[in-house]
């Protein structure tokens, strides 16, 4: 038996999403099992199955540094404030 992770997508809409997991003896049986467990009511028309032991899981600490990079964003507030100041100065 292998554990497979199940990903579904509706054609033309959104991205593939993780739906859950299942145990199956091989890839062909995993497809049958996924169809009957996760898409009984057409929750997706595209199906990806990935064996869990083939999934590369990055360490949380490796991912974390990019949560603290404010200089990679610009929310527009500083620009809006300058525009407003300029507008008021010219009135």
């Amino acid at each position, binding site marked *: 038996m292998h554990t497979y992770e199940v990903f579904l997508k509706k054609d033309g809409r959104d991205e593939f999403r993780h739906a859950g*997991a*299942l145990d*199956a*003896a*091989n890839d062909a*049986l995993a497809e049958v099992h996924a169809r009957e*467990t996760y898409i*009984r*009511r057409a929750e997706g028309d595209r199906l990806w199955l990935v*064996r869990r032991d083939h999934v590369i899981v990055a360490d949380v600490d490796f991912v974390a540094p990019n949560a603290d990079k404010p200089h990679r964003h610009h929310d527009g507030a500083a620009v809006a404030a300058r525009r407003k100041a300029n507008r008021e100065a010219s009135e």
Partner: protein
Amino acid sequence: MDAFETFLDGGGIVEADDDMPDDYRRAVFAFIEMHANSELMGGLTERDWIPKTPGLRHKMSVLAKTQDEIGHGHLLYMVAAAMGVKTRPQMLEDLFAGKSRFHNVFHYQAVTWGDQVAIAFLVDAAALASQQAVFKNCSYGPYRRILKRIISEEGFHMRLGEDRMMRIAEGTDVQRQLFQDSIDRWFWPALQLFGPDSKPDDKLLRWHIKSERNEVLRDRWVQKFVPMLHSYGFTIPADDLFYDEATNQWDVGPIDWEPLKKTLAQGGPDSARRITEASNNWNRTAWVREALEQASATVPA
């Protein structure tokens, strides 16, 4: 634990491979395992009714519902197994050995089609209300995500139950009496599914698994189903039932919790037969699992 509880109070979500206190892991696992067991036991009962269900329309809905319930069992056993407390086969072995719990309502026998209707109408509604209260604010991410799909399917089941109830309520006197007998048998077990009043130090509430107290959910169910059953001309099997004019609330009177305690100790009216049947079913299908193991050993994945 203090830091972990602060994290949970702040809306923190726990994932399967995160560090978590052992008490939390065990409590959440036990809760999901009981839910998984209940879906499987419920699915097996539903399956028993496929040949006996009257009419093709109802029969097809029972087929679909059986597949849903067994499917929910699969989903939940996968989520539970990923917590690393027990494997999926261990959970099944414990269930069939009578060592683990499943919901009280599956410790009773469904004798007539009326019982199946009462179960779909009263019990599924109670189960759905409990699941929705968990889904609302569940701190364990994998459980919350899988509940979303389970709840949407349980919604179909409840509507099916109401549909069946209305058909039987609009039927002959014999049909109506059949259903009244079923209400008399299933009202209290359905109400007891919510459990006794939550304890002040309930861990599942503190750790944001449950979002509402048992008595609150139970009372909401009473306020909905008592008037609904009355409106179809059925009676409620509660001698002390009264309507409190001051609060505009129905009160079912004191609740005898002994039957619930018995089911939790596998001593319900139908516990032994149910567990034996489920266990026999597991043994009868061993050849399928063996064939699959064989296939995974010989066929390249």
